[in-house]
């Protein structure tokens, strides 16, 4: 079973209990305008180029099979991520985002350090991208990890109900985003309807898998009393809800877009201060925190 990932971060501290190894799977059906992992969007390999350190030596141009059509960032419009320029760049400012890997190889890599993470009360977290987009690969990896590893997932909840059910059955902890309860706003800022997401959120609320609701708090988009109240209303009766976490928008979110030669057009005012409101959750008897 093959999958594509774009990073394994070690010692992650915000992705579940203890210290964790976080696997970032590549590919996401959403296009959130605040996304800070743009290399996680496409399910294909991509060339990334750091904006600093280029000496204009021309090695990449020579190495690229499409070298006559390089744009000013040193990447052809129809780049197929062959990687020849990565090895040629003497400054090593180019890299390929994406690694094709089998579930077995990924599980082996994670298991090599599993005892360390277990000793801190941690484990493995799948993030992305959207893990539901590679549900079979993720589930196979989980199976190979065995029962001794604590498993968590960070998901948008945008996926087939059958896959989501399997996630709920296979993960020890689900961290799911609720970006907007208003379908129009959701469509506008993420490119998709929230219908599936809300359906899956209801399954999560009815189930017994421990879960955390996460709100990426975006200024002027969802930092409203209405949104917080609607989220609280939806999840307040869920027996397995641990807490609601709010993740305020960070100005550095746009940092990686230039590296992919993609424009960063957030569609909201990123300089606007965010409104955090934990009182609403307290009123519903829900624990909340700000990350």
């Amino acid at each position, binding site marked *: 079973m093959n999958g594509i990932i774009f990073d394994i*971060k*070690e*010692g*992650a*501290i*915000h992705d579940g209990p*203890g*210290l964790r190894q976080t696997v970032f799977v590549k590919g996401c059906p959403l296009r959130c305008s605040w996304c800070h992992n743009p290399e996680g969007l496409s399910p294909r390999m991509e060339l990334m180029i750091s904006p600093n350190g280029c000496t204009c*030596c021309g*090695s990449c141009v020579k190495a690229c099979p499409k070298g006559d059509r390089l744009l000013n960032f040193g990447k052809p419009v129809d780049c197929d991520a062959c990687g020849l320029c990565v090895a*040629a*760049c*003497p*400054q*090593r400012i180019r890299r390929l985002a994406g690694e094709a890997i089998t579930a077995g190889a990924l599980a082996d890599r994670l298991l090599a*350090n599993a005892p*360390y993470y277990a*000793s*801190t*009360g941690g484990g493995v977290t799948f993030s992305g991208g959207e893990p539901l987009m590679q549900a079979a690969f993720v589930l196979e990896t989980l199976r190979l990890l065995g029962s001794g590893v604590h498993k968590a997932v960070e998901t948008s909840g945008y996926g087939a109900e059958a896959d989501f059910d399997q996630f709920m059955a296979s993960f020890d902890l689900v961290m799911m985003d609720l970006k907007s309860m208003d379908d129009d706003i959701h469509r506008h800022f993420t490119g998709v309807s929230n219908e599936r997401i809300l359906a899956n959120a209801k399954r999560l609320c009815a189930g017994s898998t421990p879960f955390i609701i996460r709100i990426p708090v975006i200024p002027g988009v969802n930092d409203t009393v209405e949104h917080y109240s609607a989220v609280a209303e939806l999840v307040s009766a869920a027996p397995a809800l641990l807490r609601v976490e709010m993740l305020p928008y960070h100005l550095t979110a746009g940092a990686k877009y230039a590296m992919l030669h993609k424009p960063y057009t957030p569609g909201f005012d990123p300089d606007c201060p965010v409104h955090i409101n934990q009182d609403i959750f307290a009123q519903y008897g829900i624990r909340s*925190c*700000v*990350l």
Partner: protein
Amino acid sequence: MTERIRQLKQFFVIDKAHHATRFQSQDEYALAEHFKQKGLNDLERATQRLTLMMAAETPLLFPLERIVLTRRNPTVPSLFTKAELDRIKSTHKLHERGEVCNISVDYTMLLNRGLRDRRSELTISAAAFAKAGEKDKADYLTMQVEILDALQDLCNRYREQAIREGRQEIADMLTRVPMLAPRTFPEALQMFRILHFAMWLGGNYHNTVGRLDQYLYPYYRADIDAGRMTKESALEWLEEFFLTFNRDSDLYPGMQQGDNGQSIMLGGLNTDGSDSYNELSELCLKASLELCLIDPKINLRVNHNTPLDVYVLGSELTKQGLGFPQYANDEIVIPALLAYGYEPRDAYNYTVAACWEFIVPGRGMDIPNIGAVSFAAAMQKAVAEQLESTTNFDALLTAVKNNIHQQVLENVKAVQNLYIFPAPFLSLMMDGCSDSGRDVSLGCRYNNYGLHGTGIATAVDALAAIRKYVFGDQSITKTELLHALERDYAEQDGLLAKLRFDAPKMGNNDPEVDDIAVALMDAFADSVQGQINERGGIFRAGTGSAMYYVWHAANLPATADGRHAGEGLAANYSPSLFARLKGPISILQSFAKPHLTRLCNGGPLTLELHDTMFRNEQAIQKVALMVKSFMDMGGHQLQLNAVNRDTMLDAQRNPKDHRNLIVRVWGWSGYFVELDKEYQDHIIKRMELAL
């Protein structure tokens, strides 16, 4: 923090308003000229210098303060004229400035007794020595009496001034101390201030504080139990006390501002296996957390039973960006010190010197920073001279080990005929020194020397690259590599990139790399084994760098890890500055592998963590978990920095906006804007990890 403490901090540390009361600087050598004309010997000079310095101080009381003594005279004169110093240096090895420094005295030898008691003992002993015809010893003790008298005079002048100014509390305190033993925690703090003040006046420096939470604990406990003090009032006293370390510290000698050695060690295992971490240890952490000052520098002894809460409190302190606490692992350090021959009572009582060298209070005249070995130079020399003719990697590795051995021998040879200036006041707080009439500068119970080891990651990375590319896949020829190294990779961008960025690096938990580190560090430990110094002590191998990471880098040609000629080495025990690493856990795993009980002179693994990693309680808890895990894996010493590269870059551009930005340099914390640019740049270059 109370309003009073806030105002004192504003006055002494931020406004430095007391600086205006200082005398003019004087010619450092004028007194020595006078000494020379009078034909005084070194001991007479050391004594007279100190008594004159004390006599010259005039009392200064500042509003709101309750612990007094502020230095007015900025100049500690040299004992010898320049010509005399040159002559001494032609026949003797002088360590640094020649003065006794970087040791941990046993304050309780005076603090728990009071000067009067000690004075009468000294007088009796002096008479006994005189009677026995041992005039030198009698004279020595008599000089110590003179020093105590001068110190008492100074404190009397403060007392009289306090009375004149109607500062009854201060006057009462000085009626008791230093003449009589303190009865309360505040009196003990004032007594310490007096002793420490005198040490600096006497020209001794890197005057470490030691296990403050242990020797002051009885005073603390008694006051709490008797209801004379609450935890809150104790914290206020402690905070004022901590402020005293920042009053005159700009006058203390050091390589850079901040390098003054005022280190404190908290907690630690007792010989019976119990943990000495107590309420006062915790209050010290809290005081430091509230004050956010570079002094005193906090060290924390931990063991496998240390509760996570202690690490959490430590991590909250790290979050302040002070660069401490620095953690020391009793499970490694104590066995190491026992193996070095320290008695259990001393091994369990260890503290740190100015930076991180493990020393013992009151009994050690160790010189843990007497020299240094450069792993990087040992590697570079082997590559330059022997790679060509070497047929396999093991032979090259052997050549490196031989070079390490050679450097150890050179270090051992270079420290013959050591001369240290007498320190009659410090000797009063060193075991056996004054009873025997023998100055501590001549030695104490332990007289071991320590050698730092720099550039381990550079050496290991270069060798790992050679093993992989030259002897392994043979993608680089020996000639190609040697040629590139000679020419500092000129026009070899491709080769440079491969070695610099693609090659395996120490800090990635890669067994193919880390085994080289184990081998080189074992070789260092093996090489010092059996070497005895002229004072009968041993040599201890260490993982620190002090400023050698700068010195050893300057003349080092290009290395096979893709490092340019002259490019910096990492400070202390750390990954290479440009290594691309998987993350902090791999670093901890790699650096826990070497046999650190054999290289336990001191020198921490240093990790730079982005300050956003500390943004909430949950995150701090996890930083604490990470620190604990390094200790559980067998790490010896760890020091974390919460840093932000952007802040530092801005501080270089706009120093005025960042007066209070504190950074860790090599074994001490300082104000970023007060450092030379060379040090600033190095800190900016260090890796910064975000989780």
